[in-house]
């Protein structure tokens, strides 16, 4: 199943999945993101890097439709996110986007298996196929034996791997990862990144990673650098 999907995505590789046009975000008098333009093609991997406060997370939030830009547009798979209302953006997130957070953001009252199933359940698909897929993904990230464990019973690395499984269950077209190794030690971080890239390759998902980690950035096909909210020209 995973290989078939990968082939389909490769066919679409030339297509643009994310297009950012003159994107600006200000909070009061503070401009956090300044007139940014870039495009990301289908199936590619991209790292957004920059010092703290450079606007990386804000940019990621805007690209994922979590926030509204002050100016400019974000086109995700051809859809202008600004033209959608909150429910419309939620639908796009549900159908096309996956997330991996620095602080894992598993729902503390749900088991690992239930956490992974949530995105599909939100789409009204919580049946046996989803259950099987969730089990398969957890198994894939090495958590096959910890399906019924709650987040508090998992280590940081295990939580992040469960979060990876959750991010891929709805076969997103694009996956946003915000400092996915920020809360992990080097060894565990490496394991999580290996899992991330392996799943990405398997699903052919477009990957956008916000990171401080230069080693991680180097593994991405493309690096976008931010400084004081503006894009640093690619060298």
């Amino acid at each position, binding site marked *: 199943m995973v290989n078939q999907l990968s082939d389909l995505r490769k066919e679409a590789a030339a297509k643009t999945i994310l297009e950012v046009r003159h994107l600006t975000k200000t909070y009061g008098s503070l401009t956090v993101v300044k007139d940014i333009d870039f495009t990301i093609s289908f199936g590619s991997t991209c790292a957004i890097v920059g010092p703290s406060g450079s606007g990386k997370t804000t940019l990621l*939030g805007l690209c994922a439709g979590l926030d509204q830009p002050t100016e400019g547009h974000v086109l995700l798979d051809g859809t202008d996110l600004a033209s959608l209302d909150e429910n419309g953006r939620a639908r796009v997130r549900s159908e096309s986007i996956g997330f991996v957070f620095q602080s894992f953001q598993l729902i*503390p*009252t749900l088991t690992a298996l239930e956490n992974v199933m949530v*995105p599909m359940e*939100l789409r009204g698909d919580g049946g046996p196929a989803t259950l099987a897929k969730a089990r398969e993904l957890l198994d894939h990230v090495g958590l096959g034996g910890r399906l019924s464990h709650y987040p508090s019973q998992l280590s940081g690395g295990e939580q992040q791997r469960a979060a990876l499984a959750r991010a891929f269950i709805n076969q997103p077209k694009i996956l946003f990862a915000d400092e996915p190794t920020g809360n992990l030690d080097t060894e565990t971080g490496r394991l999580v990144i290996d899992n991330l890239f392996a799943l990405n390759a398997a699903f052919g998902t477009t990957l956008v990673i916000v990171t401080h980690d230069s080693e991680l950035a180097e593994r991405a096909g493309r690096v976008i650098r931010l400084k004081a909210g503006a894009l640093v020209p690619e060298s």
Partner: protein
Amino acid sequence: MSDVVKHLFRPWTWRMCWRDCRSNRGRLLLFSLSIVLGVAALAAIGSFGVNMERAVEEQAKTLLGADLSISSRQPFSTNEEHLFAQLGGEQARQIAFNSMAYFPSGDGTRLAQVRALSGGFPFYGKFETEPPSAVEEFKRGAGALVEENLLIQFDAKVGETVRIGKLAVPIVGALRKVPGESAALALISPRVYLPMADMPATGLGGKGTLARYTVFFKFPPGTNVEKLVKSIDPRLDKFRLSSETVEKRKQDLGRAMENLYHFLNLGGLIALLLGGIGVAGAIHTHVKQKLPTAAILRCLGAPVAQTFAVYLAQGIALGLAGAISGALLGALIQSALPRALASFIPFDFQFRISWFAVVRAGAIGFGICLLFALLPLLAIRRVSPLAALRVAWEPKSARDPLRWVIIAILLAALFAFGLGQERNWRMALGFTGALAFVFAALSGTAFLLMRLVRKLIRPGLPFVVRQGLSGLHRPNNRTHLLIFSLGVGTFLLTSIVFIEHMLAGDLMITTGTGQANAILFDIQRSQLPAVSNLVAGLQLPVLDQLPLVNMRISSIKGRDVESLLADKQSHIPSWPLRREYRSTYSDHLRGAEHVIAGQWIPRATNAAVVPISIEKDIAKDLGVGLGDEIVFDVQGIPVTTKVASLREVDWRRMEPNFFMLFPLGVLEDAPAMDVLVTRVATSAQSAQLQRAMVKAFPNVSVIDLTMIVQTLDAIVNKVFFVIRFMALFTVLTGILVLISALVTGHFQRVRESVLLRTLGAASGQVFGILLVEYLSLGVVAALTGVVLALGGAWALAQFVFHVHFAPPLAPVVLAFVIVPLLTGGVGLFMSRRVLKYPPLEMLRAESS
């Protein structure tokens, strides 16, 4: 909105709701307890109301004991007897009057209501006596039935004798219950039933005695009594006879019982509202803890409505749990209510669960709980998915217009509830306004406290005090909720104590030192010198002596009473037109009265038009003012009068007071009874006076005001027992809300307490910080509650009871001791784990 409803019908919403509260179910159930007592109170009271209605309906005929009763203050005339003969049916007669009952065995005497009875009354229901066969004995004319309490008071037994007037009659049984009369009535005026045949032998009931003559009718089944009464109404008016039918008694009783029911219901609602506030506070904390989860769901693609529906489902479940538990508890405890109210219910009360009332209470509880829960739940709607990316993200503090819509719905629901109880929009508005005021005052106090503390905290204060006080205004503080729950509880309890104190104090004032406390009445003119001598011989002062002349109104401002009674457009109520006035004549006013308009004329110079003084309220009822003419029928002689002055009378002063006051020079020759007023120092002296009087002058009755005050005190105590019973629900709810608030507060405080311990704070320091916070909250809540209660009691004293109010110190001191101790005690008990266990263990426990 429709999206939210749509999502509420999706199984995933409820599955997620169930999964999401896995670690909080116990806590959520605890929160739901807040409304349990309020719902239980409403369910119990609702069942009581339904049972009461049914009892009144089922026992309607026993409420009167007859189909119709007709009564008069005068012996029935030949024409009236002719009317009764025309009415037919089975008839029974009763003459009721007050007289001294003397128990020779114990040499005890007390004023009692004597009822001489002939015929088969009660035709419906029966006297309850001990032994039960005593009723038959009484009907055979073998002796008297005497109120059981009276027998107990004087240690008299069945078989001994009681003396009424000149008659010594055997006691055939102890009277426990008379159909249609409440037990409280027996406290005021214990009853003694005599066979009518024995009446002449008593020597009582002669001219001038204040007696009520009644004829009871039992008609053949199918008789339309209402129609019958309507047909004789003009004649009843003409003869100034008053009538009562089962239907009328039912309506009067229904109204009285409805008032009691509504009062209890409002008490239940206050408990429920306090519970609702508790729920709102608890949900507020719960929602704050759930915001990150809501943000994750939003990030994963859940629309706003779906996320909101998950937490709304929790609110619904919580409300349902509280409402169902409360309704079931109400069904269980409702049997206690008739026992608490037994003294006020004049019929047998078969208690059955009214499932309708239980379900209705549950529905009201659920609705109120949900509305209160919605206030904090609205925050879920404003959770941005960005919160999942940024831990420090805070929701915008912009006011949510929906919040005001919910508050408006809550107020409208309160108003509707009040309207349902009072059927009067002004009262309902007053009720809603008063509640809103108390809540606003408590809320305002909490707000001011937080502002004040923030300004007053100085770096120089000890660390423990500074930290503890800071807890009152820092984020996640429990100040609002605790001031509410503790404040309302303190307010209710201290109010009750204040009002009790105020009314008891007023009773003391009315019988204060030096004032008259014994009144001898029904003294015949010829007996007056001897009675005065007897009083003087007992070393008692004759404080006052006045004649009483019976009279009725013949006409007012030229219109005769019959036409006024027949005039349906007339605004004059019928009772002051029909009644017999017992007036006096004097050349001076007494201490309890003063002229407020016109001039008091002490002696009449023109016998053709007598200048009288009239009490202001009865003047208002009769529609007369200064200069208006009233013609009285003084036992057959017309006396024309003119209103020369209006008086204000302090009826609370237990002295002989009068509606109509005549000057000297007019009524001296009219047949009169005299009243003599004295003061007894001890109950032994009072008993001595009563014994001496009943032996020498059996027709003279003695009212011992001290005993009346004690009786009133007993009745007031019974009333306050009912009020305390209802307040108990609110106070217990307050304690539950307190516990729930402290539990939620504990979960918020635990992290910083653990952090402090991690940073090296000793358990004693953490204990001290928590103690300072809880004690401060307790003190401020006590202060607020006491101040509100003082304000309320003052307003009641000033505008309702018209008495002087000096607040007692003891309850104020008690409030300032108990409330902070309770808050501190419960708070520290809830935090004991923080103090006892190692910080790491606590952190792990809290994060799981």
